[in-house]
């Protein structure tokens, strides 16, 4: 392997995964860690399903917005999923990782559809809501796989959908606002 001069920022970084440089992958790993740690640390007793989407989807969109390359969402999803399994943030066991990977992967696709303009509030609303809902759908699919009775999957689905959309959209809006402020500051050093 050729030696890389890490101190020279002007030199393009070799692709490591998904056309992403090593520095970006490490930053995305940090975002993934941040997502899982926030889910572990913050316990809001508001009793509404999907409220974690505010910071979960918010951080996902923020990470994707700051490192706008294909695969960024997936990497954050994989890392947060791995850590969620380790933290034991659910009863699905190792399958829990999919609940984190699916929104991340969907974020990569949706970002392309919206020309990667994640700093737009409306894009934040749409993408945040949709990836939050994809998390709910993944939970239901996992429920079917884990043989959870149909009654618990069907009942309250609409209520949970509505709340996931609302909280996801809120997270997307917060991310869009943060992106607007952070992107110009970090553009020079992060966009390698």
């Amino acid at each position, binding site marked *: 392997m050729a030696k890389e001069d890490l101190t020279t920022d002007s030199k393009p970084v070799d692709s490591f995964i998904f056309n992403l440089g090593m520095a970006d992958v490490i930053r995305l790993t940090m975002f993934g860690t941040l997502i899982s740690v926030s889910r572990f640390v913050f316990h809001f007793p508001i009793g509404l399903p999907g409220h974690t989407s505010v910071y979960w989807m918010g951080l996902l969109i923020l990470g994707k917005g700051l490192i706008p390359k294909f695969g960024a969402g997936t990497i954050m999803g994989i890392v947060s999923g791995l850590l969620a399994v380790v933290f034991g943030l659910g009863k699905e066991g190792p399958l829990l990782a999919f609940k984190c990977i699916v929104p991340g992967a969907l974020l990569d696709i949706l970002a392309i*559809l*919206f*020309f990667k*303009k994640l700093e*737009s509030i*409306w*894009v934040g*609303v*749409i*993408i945040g*809501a*949709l990836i939050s*809902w994809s998390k709910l759908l993944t939970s239901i699919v996992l429920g079917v796989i884990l*043989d*959870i*009775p*149909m*009654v*618990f999957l*069907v*009942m*309250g*689905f*609409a209520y949970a*959908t*509505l709340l996931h*959309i609302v909280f996801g*959209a809120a997270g997307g809006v917060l991310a869009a606002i943060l992106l607007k402020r952070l992107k110009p500051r970090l553009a020079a050093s992060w966009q390698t």
Partner: protein
Amino acid sequence: MTFNRRIVVGILVLVLVAGGAFLLEHMAKVQLSRNGRLVPVIQDSKIIAYLDAGTIRQLSQQERELRPGQDNSNNHSEVSLSFMLGSTGVVDYQYIEVSGVGNSKDFKLNPGDIEDIALSASSNHHTFALVNRAEGNRVMIQKVAKVYVAN
């Protein structure tokens, strides 16, 4: 497609997802209730819980844990009617009326009658049956459709 048009489509998709979820839940309730895959427990003209074959299996497991040495100790898909009623939050009643899918006969059971009555989940049809343990698990209703609790 322009960026603004994509935003409009995106918002429409969100509205459709939210509306579709309510429609889907309602349709699923109606459809599954019709074929006995989702069974409402009704008290005071109000639905107090929904049951399905999966919940019967879960309740069976709980009953075996809480009532060791019961009749269903070897049956993993059978729960006594009394345990089911307790689990759904039924606290006081005069009689229970269980009806089945289609033209099957309805059964009216007084508190003293339900001792040997159980619900047994079928493995193939995602439905559950009303059986009498005292008569060697004689099937009283093949596919339970509704449980009515009279105060």
